[in-house]
């Protein structure tokens, strides 16, 4: 039905890169998200302010603008700082690193909101009980807070993940060879843009469908023992 004229493997290579990109930026965004969520809830005013500014600004600006800013701006920045440190050659930013850090940075802000909500959803008495047992703050966080907040975080986390996956398509604009870029190259060579972009769209659809299945299972697993109201 679909003839890819020999460009199938290159599209698959792009798919692999897209998946790597998704997972790597997810990892960064989760770390940033947790730190920011804790900063937002902390009693230190400065941490509060920085975290608040970060989430507000990031969520108010389009991903593409941020990506272009960090990609082109980062390039200029590194080449200004490089000579100061005694490194004279022109430094090219690795587009993969640029893409991963940008997407991770953007979604860190969204994750922070999800995690903040999830932390607040855990009853305060739970933590209090932990402290009463003589646990340190770190122990309370790892043993009491984390296991219970996961359940509240999963729906929001799932949404963020689905949006993140679709956002990775933007890296094709800054020259990363993800599947959208590969499809563009194949389309240019074969003059079949519709076919190739449709294939990429279908791959995205498969990836999101698999994600939804996994997320539903996770949700079920972490909600074991929680009674739901009869509808």
């Amino acid at each position, binding site marked *: 039905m679909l003839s890819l004229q020999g460009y199938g493997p290159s599209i698959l290579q792009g798919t692999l890169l897209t998946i790597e990109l998704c997972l790597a930026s997810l990892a960064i965004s989760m770390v940033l998200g947790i730190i920011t969520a804790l900063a937002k809830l902390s009693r230190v005013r400065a941490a509060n302010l920085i975290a608040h500014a970060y989430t507000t*600004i990031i*969520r*108010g*600006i*389009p*991903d*593409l*603008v*941020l990506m*272009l*800013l960090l990609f*082109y*701006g980062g*390039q*200029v920045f590194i080449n200004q700082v490089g000579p100061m440190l005694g490194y004279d050659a022109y430094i090219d930013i690795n587009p993969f690193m640029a893409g991963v850090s940008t997407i991770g940075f953007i979604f860190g802000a969204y994750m922070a909101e999800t995690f903040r909500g999830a932390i607040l959803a855990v009853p305060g008495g739970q933590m209090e009980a932990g402290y009463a047992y003589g646990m340190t703050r770190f122990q309370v966080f790892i043993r009491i807070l984390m296991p219970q907040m996961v359940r509240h975080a999963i729906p929001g986390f799932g949404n963020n993940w689905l949006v993140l996956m*679709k*956002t*990775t*398509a*933007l890296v*094709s*604009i800054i020259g990363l060879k993800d599947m*959208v870029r590969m*499809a*563009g190259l194949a*389309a240019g060579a074969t*003059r*079949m*843009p*519709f*076919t190739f*972009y*449709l294939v*990429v*769209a279908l791959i*995205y*659809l498969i990836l*999101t*469908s698999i994600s939804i299945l996994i997320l539903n299972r996770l949700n079920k697993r972490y909600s074991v023992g929680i009674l739901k109201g009869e509808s």
Partner: protein
Amino acid sequence: MNFSIIADNIGIYFLGLKNTLILVSVSLSIGLVFAVPLAVLRTSKNILISGPINAYTYFFRGTPLLVQMFLIYYGMGQFETIKASFLWPFFREAYFCALFAFTLNTCAYTIEIIRGAIENTPHGEVEAAKAAGMSLYLRFTRIILPSAFRRALPTYGNEIIFMLHGSSLASVITIIDITGAARIINSRYYTPYEAFITAGAFYLTITFILVWLLKKLEYRWLAHLRRE
């Protein structure tokens, strides 16, 4: 940083602002107009009616907007029948293609938002309407939709912001929206910070104004849920 370059070229940003606002408002309005009846049909129990709408929303919500835009802008040229038809003058235009892609995308999201709100109508309200002898049409126009719109408002507000941010993709297919203006300034003067920070400030301002307006609207529409 040298913001005098921006001050000298502020005109292009305002041109971009105009285009962004047109793209966003037109696609949101057309999307909403089509989404309401489609959302009602989507709740139908007849799979022949709800199935195709379901497939449409699934496709457009599960794939990136960028790819949808490319499918329309680059993809349509693949078909000789379209190239030969009266549609070609439209699909040749980047502006029309962006608008078309944005409309299809926001319509799909809006359908699901309104469907969710319709399905969350308290059962008692529908029952009461039935008991009062209302027809299906009356039930929808008088009971279900007015309360569904209220419930949908906060989520739809997010969709508006999402569309504003999504519209920045138009710059990829040569349209001069706010992002497009920034890209032109960046490539002309090689000033990424100034160019993109200015664009970011424009978007941030629009976002704040929208959030403020939506809050006011919510305050009015959801007055009955207000806590004293």
